[in-house]
């Protein structure tokens, strides 16, 4: 573990009645999501990383550079970050173009073909018609898109985003998220991404930092934390597990891909795909149903042999089961959420080997990896 490809932070401080005591280390190759309930300190941590808040007891190092530690403190404007604030914070005296180019080096449109070039960002965010507009004449979502574009165009080496998509409709979100992911991949641009939307995190993030009441509950790879029944994620209504898969076959006629993960193979619709390419899939606990026998003649494409590794009661009459893929359950883990009624009807128990049915369309998030 080379310290030069990690972000390491540790912040301790008191704000009125709020005590922050958060420390984590996360790789800079990949997107790190900061997740936790309202008021748990996500924004505060992000501000500390940006240098907007200076704590006496703080440490922050990015790729081996110490930005904050002991007496040394690098001022905000010398940190190569992009920051999307929770509220858009556009400059009211500049047009949209003026805002977009404020932080752009040389302050001119960048070379064409650049994945984060002016035209590309403007087109992706749908800002073409707004360029000469004053910020106060924009809608809420338009403002937030300009703020995202402005941060991207400043050519950051670390992008800090505080719930950037919360004002966007799902369509816009579905366009912006893959773009951010592509940006991350093609520029190797590390992100720290605050969100309260697990769906966004599943699409975008590789690493997760779970926060609660000013503290870090857990930090690690997204899939691991999602599948850990000891963490609160697994018992959430929207519990899901994200897996990395390899495309093992593709049928362009039907747009269906075979996605191999450890211990099994999923079938999923996919527009285009290259055999051997990597894909991320998310399996929602609520989308997984269990059957003693493999069913026939159904539109459910995915029926996989699994083994129940553990089972935890969730809510009042529900059970969350951790399933190991493959007949012996030795492969990747996914979660299944079933009613206690079904559980007892089928006489399910830990160690059982059975079939998991997963509706294919619920599987893939359109994010190139």
């Amino acid at each position: 573990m080379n310290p030069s490809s990690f972000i390491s932070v540790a912040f301790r401080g008191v704000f009125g009645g709020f005590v922050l005591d958060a420390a984590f280390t996360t790789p800079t190759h990949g997107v790190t999501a900061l997740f936790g309930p309202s008021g748990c300190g996500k924004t505060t941590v992000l501000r500390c990383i940006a240098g907007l808040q200076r704590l006496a007891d703080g440490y922050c190092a990015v790729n081996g550079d110490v930005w904050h530690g002991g007496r040394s403190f690098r001022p905000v404007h010398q940190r190569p970050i992009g920051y999307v604030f929770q509220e858009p914070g556009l400059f009211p005296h500049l047009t949209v173009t003026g805002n977009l180019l404020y932080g752009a080096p040389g302050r001119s449109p960048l070379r064409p073909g650049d994945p984060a070039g002016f035209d590309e960002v403007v087109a992706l965010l749908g800002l073409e018609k707004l360029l000469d507009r004053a910020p106060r004449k924009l809608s809420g979502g338009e403002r937030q898109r300009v703020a995202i574009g402005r941060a991207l165009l400043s050519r950051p080496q670390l992008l800090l985003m505080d719930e950037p998509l919360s004002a966007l409709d799902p369509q816009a979100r579905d366009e912006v998220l893959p773009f951010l992911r592509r940006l991350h991949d093609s520029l190797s641009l590390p992100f720290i991404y605050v969100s309260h939307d697990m769906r966004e995190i599943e699409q975008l993030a590789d690493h997760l930092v779970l926060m609660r009441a000013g503290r870090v509950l857990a930090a690690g790879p997204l899939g691991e934390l999602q599948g850990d029944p000891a963490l609160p994620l697994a018992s959430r209504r929207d519990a899901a597990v994200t897996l990395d898969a390899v495309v093992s076959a593709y049928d362009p006629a039907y747009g269906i891909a075979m996605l191999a993960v450890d211990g099994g193979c999923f079938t999923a619709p996919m527009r285009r795909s290259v055999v051997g390419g990597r894909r991320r899939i998310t399996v929602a606990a609520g989308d997984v149903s269990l059957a003693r026998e493999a069913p026939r003649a159904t539109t459910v494409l995915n029926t996989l042999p699994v083994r129940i590794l553990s089972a935890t009661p969730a809510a009042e009459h529900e059970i969350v089961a951790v399933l190991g893929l493959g007949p012996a359950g030795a492969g990747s883990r996914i979660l299944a959420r079933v009613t206690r009624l079904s559980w007892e009807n089928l006489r399910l128990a830990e160690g059982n080997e059975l079939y998991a049915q997963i509706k294919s369309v619920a599987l893939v998030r359109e994010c190139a990896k």
Partner: protein
Amino acid sequence: MNELPPDVWIAVRLTVGLAAITTLILLLVGTPLAWWLARTEAWWKEGVAAVVAMPLVLPPTVLGFYLLVALGPDGPGGAIAALWGGRTLAFTFGGLVIGSVIYSLPFVVQPIRNAFEAIGERPLEVAATLRASPRRVFWTVAVPLARPGFLTGAVLGFAHTVGEFGVVLMIGGNIPGSTRVLSVAIYDYVETSQWREASILAGGMVVFAFVVVFAVMLAGKRLMRVAE
């Protein structure tokens, strides 16, 4: 107007020059001071703010007297004047500028300070995250957003400099062509009860100042509107 002696036009030129230069210097001096007052967390800053307002409290002749002493041979002004062989900065155009600046400073500092404070932290933080240096943040964000304060400061400073004559009379000495500005010229007419002439001059001053102030305010408004 043709009844007015030609040296009135010299006074007009002097006045316009004095008001323009003073306003310029007021903005140059007042802006950093206002910025400091708006941003510092020093507990004594309100003390500094109060000190800036103090020249206002002094009757102009008293202030004029202190300035006369300060600018004179025994004060720092004399030392400065000695550099080019003078004995005093009083009774010079430069002396008038110094006096006017000190007297009108609070009218400029306070509105600009308020405008800086009204901006709030967020735009400055945003600019810093876009890697704008403090200098760039100041010029490209703080100053444009504080424009109403600058307008008010400039207008009050300008108008007060045009009208003020107590200090100017004291440290200027009413010398035609060098320190006899319009307000002092009017004072002369007033002293000799030439009310007709005084009123013509005063009316001209008001019209001129009105045009300048009105134009500045309109222009400021216009500039404040970002291109549609």
